[in-house]
């Protein structure tokens, strides 16, 4: 157990102290780290079946290779995060194979079906950009040294995912016609989906152990701004409509729709015209999980027990 109290450790990490292992942690630090790593691991893990089911829409063997390389990276990144969780006393076996679908902590965006190649490439362009936005911040600011070291390679690999998304978004947009319409339709539901992913606005955010213990550096609103600062100009360059604009007076990106708002997962439609809803209703929707939640989790877990039984026979 740590020789520090929570308050002492919070002060020390703000001064640059790096935590190397459980012996340096307080229980408060361990809990905050566990929550952050679980979200990170589950997000990487659940992106894999989501992309995997969409990879069948790849238009060539070469693009199949690229799509599967992304899936391979995501699984490896999940593996690293679960391994870090094992270091602080959690069980990877339980986390991956012992939980019910609704117990996973990945964002609602990875509970949605990706129904064509355009949706897969916008997902790598938007969702992976959210992932790299969050992880770059953690890499630059985290007080947990093993996580900082693990993120060096993860960051490099994620840039390839982004480029894959951007190159294909550009290609399909330039082609015009149906290709462009499909990209725009994907942007229409995935842009607000990613905005929501970053969570509660700072003004409503309860106390954040992650920031107090310097497990990350930027707030939810700052991370949303970082994501928009590269996503909105990309959409503008490609002639795609993104529901946000740069406000010169405020000096930040501003959303052009009520936030948060309701989402119809069947039609993949955000009800902008129905106005702002409460965050409690958003949490309720997240808690109910999305249409692919059980299918994605089942695809990861399904053979575990069978093969264990065969091997034990």
């Amino acid at each position, binding site marked *: 157990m740590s020789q520090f109290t929570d308050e002492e450790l919070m002060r020390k990490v703000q001064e640059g102290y790096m935590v190397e292992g459980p012996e340096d942690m307080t229980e408060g630090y361990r809990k905050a780290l566990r929550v952050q790593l679980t979200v990170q691991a589950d997000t990487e893990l659940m992106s894999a079946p989501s992309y995997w089911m969409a990879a069948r829409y790849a238009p060539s063997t*070469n693009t199949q290779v690229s799509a599967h390389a992304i899936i391979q990276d995501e699984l490896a990144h999940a593996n690293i995060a679960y391994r870090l969780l094992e270091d602080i006393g959690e069980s990877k076996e339980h986390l991956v194979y012992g939980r019910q679908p609704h117990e996973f902590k990945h964002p609602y965006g990875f509970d949605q079906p990706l129904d064509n190649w355009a949706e897969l490439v916008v997902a790598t362009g938007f969702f992976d950009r959210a992932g*790299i*936005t969050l992880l*770059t911040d953690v890499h630059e600011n985290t007080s947990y040294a093993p996580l900082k070291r693990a993120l060096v*390679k993860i960051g*490099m*690999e994620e840039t390839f995912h982004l480029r894959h998304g951007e190159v294909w978004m550009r290609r399909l947009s330039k082609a015009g016609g149906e290709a462009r319409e499909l990209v725009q339709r994907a942007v229409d539901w995935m842009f607000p989906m990613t905005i929501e992913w970053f969570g509660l606005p700072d003004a409503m955010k309860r106390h954040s152990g992650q920031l107090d213990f310097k497990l990350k550096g930027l707030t939810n609103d700052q991370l949303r701004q970082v994501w928009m*600062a590269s996503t909105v100009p*990309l959409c503008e360059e490609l002639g795609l409509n993104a529901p946000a604009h740069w406000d010169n007076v405020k*000096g930040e990106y501003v959303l052009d729709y009520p936030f948060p708002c309701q989402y119809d997962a069947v039609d993949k439609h955000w009800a902008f015209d129905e106005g702002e809803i409460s965050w409690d209703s958003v949490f309720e929707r997240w808690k109910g999980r999305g249409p692919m939640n059980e299918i994605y989790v089942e695809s990861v877990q399904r053979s575990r027990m069978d093969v264990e039984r065969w091997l034990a026979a």
Partner: protein
Amino acid sequence: MTTLSLPVVERRRHAGLPPAVTSHMSGGRDQWSPPLKEAPVDTVQGTWDLLQEVLDPEIPISLPELGLIYGVEFDDGVARIELTFTATACPCMEFIREDITDRLESEHWIDSVELTEVWSPPWTSDRITPEGRAKLKKLGVSA
């Protein structure tokens, strides 16, 4: 592509946030020198020098440092590059080809680029140059 990144950087500075998360500069595009005013005397060496600016899409070391370039010939405005990839399932083949072509064809003395894939001898990490190895070590990546 460079024109896109400028307003982004400007806006972000204004917002007091860290550098943009973007892959527009993948392949080392932000470090590419402006095109040469005059063709180099040694066009083969000049082509190698340009390739030295093209970075791997995932790891920020150059393609020659990674040992992917097997040969360079130059003949009458045509740059012929023999290259390999780290694996037959390299997911970045297309990006690497695009980066080489974009960098070389930005030079007025290079009319076109011909890329030939070579799989023998196969690439191994032994092909990484000492300079490349030193950079990787600095990045915390073992080779």
